[in-house]
């Protein structure tokens, strides 16, 4: 029972990271209708910036997170302007391949700058581990911070998209680009803002991911990126609560699958659940049903 609880805690911790990454994916997809494959690599860049800030530039862990967020936000906006904006009218496949090219570009740049060998990432969290049930259930500081960060981000984003003018503009653009433009919304600025928010979230996710799993290398972001994308689809792509539910469920399923079914098959288990969910609900758990018009 205790071991189950401990796996559950690990699952929620991993799931929270997935949820934060999935949010970025989901928001970008909702607005730009594109799969941003480079998102996972922005996570990796965030990890490296934070690593450099604490190790080489002598900054405090909190400052390093802020710097990572600033750099990733700038990176996200620049990528959008240079690579994705010229392709706004192009086919979705062309945008997808460009995003893949961007992903290769970021990975290889990181490899040239920081080398291919994994770097041991010092955790940015210095909260002691809490032990419950006479030391049988350990909850690490990283877990608590990750879950807390996830909750704060979710609440902040829900308020932002629901209450503020810019948030409403974002929802309007994702609903109907043409109509939003007619209503006087600056569509390009709104899309840039979405990329900025998504990339800032990716930076946070990168730091949290590397704090929990400390090996940092140029390919660190790709698998969590794919899984987070899966989580976004799982919960219903384009929906904020969907990303939360999808991320958490995916993390818990992965850890429990690895613990109780088979270590090698953990990933296969995650993807199998995704397929079953999509067959029953083709637009994800909380996704909106799109009616087809002839």
């Amino acid at each position, binding site marked *: 029972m205790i071991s189950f609880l401990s796996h559950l805690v690990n699952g929620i911790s991993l799931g929270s990271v997935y949820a934060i990454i999935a949010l970025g994916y989901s928001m970008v*997809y909702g607005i730009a209708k594109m799969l941003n494959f480079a998102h996972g690599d922005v996570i990796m860049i965030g990890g490296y910036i934070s690593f450099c800030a604490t190790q080489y530039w002598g900054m405090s862990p909190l400052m390093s997170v802020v710097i990572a967020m600033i750099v990733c936000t700038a990176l996200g906006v620049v990528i959008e302007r240079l690579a994705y904006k*010229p392709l706004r009218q192009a086919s*979705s496949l*062309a945008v997808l*391949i460009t995003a893949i*090219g961007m992903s290769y570009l970021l990975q290889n740049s990181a490899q040239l700058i920081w080398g291919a060998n994994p770097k041991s990432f010092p955790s940015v969290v210095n909260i002691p581990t809490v032990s419950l049930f006479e030391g049988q259930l350990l909850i690490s500081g990283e877990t608590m911070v990750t879950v807390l960060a996830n909750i704060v981000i979710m609440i902040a984003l829900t308020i932002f998209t629901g209450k503020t003018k810019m948030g409403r503009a974002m929802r309007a653009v994702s609903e109907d680009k043409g109509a939003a433009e007619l209503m006087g919304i600056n569509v390009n600025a709104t899309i840039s803002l979405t990329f900025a928010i998504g990339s800032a979230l990716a930076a946070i996710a990168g730091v949290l991911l590397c704090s929990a799993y400390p090996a940092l290398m140029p390919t660190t972001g790709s698998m969590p990126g794919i899984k987070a994308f899966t989580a976004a689809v799982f919960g219903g792509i384009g929906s904020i609560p969907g990303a939360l539910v999808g991320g958490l469920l995916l993390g818990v399923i992965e850890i429990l699958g690895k613990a109780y079914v088979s270590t090698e098959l953990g990933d296969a288990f995650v*993807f199998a659940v995704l397929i079953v969910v*999509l*067959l029953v609900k*083709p637009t994800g758990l909380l996704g909106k049903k799109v009616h087809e018009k002839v």
Partner: protein
Amino acid sequence: MKMSKKFRSNLITYALVIVAFIICQLAVDGTIEGFKMSRSLKGQLVPICVYIVMAVSLNLTVGISGELSLGHAGFMSVGAFSGIVMSSWLVSAFQFENELLRLLIAMITGGVMAGIAGVLIGIPVLRLRGDYLAIVTLAFGEIIRNVLNCLYFSLDGAKLYIGFNNPNLPGKVFVNGPAGATGVDKISTFVMGVVLILFTLFVILNLVNSRSGRAIMAIRDNRIAAESMGINVTKYKMMAFVTSAVLAGMAGALYGLNYSTVTAAKFRFDTSILVLVFVVLGGIGNIRGSIIAATVLTILPEVLRAFSDYRMLVYAIVLILVMLATNSPLLMNLVERIRPKKKTQVKEGDAA
């Protein structure tokens, strides 16, 4: 008039492959003075054939049938492993030493197994659309890789043992889960690769220009209109998907039998993406474009070896720039002004 034009275009495609084969064969033999292929390039000959077949078969799914598949490497891995198992079993059970025949049987086995996988995966996948379909094919590709990582095969005379997550099998274990297949007979040949390319072209070009092919393209262009014309959507989508899987499986068998060690990790998600890049750069739906793109992009990293560390960076930048250039309205207008009506040939020119 129209038919003969298509026929001529197909002939050019076949001729292109055969001429390229003769030139390569001359370069390998070194019959002409000063015209000899380097060793590293010689090692690339079979992989080039494999990637051409992969690209052409994926083009059937993505270009002709219009479904974005991100799990094509999954079918390749099924073909590779079943081909290796078949080839090893033939030797162990019947002392069957004829390499050419063994390769042929292995490739057919690979194709059949990948075809079965294609049917099983196609049933759920083809119910979905667009990006959801893409993510599910990606998921299946990853599942196949994970499952292959847990499979163990061993041979004891004519008996073949299969273990799931269990390496303690009787006899000689030759597929070791995550360590992959070891001690594989390298029986793949360049000639067989070219034969497979010609076979693939024959199947796909004939399919595209047939009644079924037109039905598949009608579904791609407008599913609802096609359905109301009485076209069985599921049947034709499945036909394209499974044909593509079978050809990928045959290519996989050829690929697997070209190396002494093959691991499931070779058929990662990156491989699927790589093949998709060939298809998109060659021009979606353009078979000849896929062949050229697969050849150029397989050789390119070898040629770029001079740049060593920078080669993948250059590759990424080239990829982005080509996508931006082919989709830039300015350039499209320019091309249209020079060559007014031949719209389909625009992509091909850019790929080369």
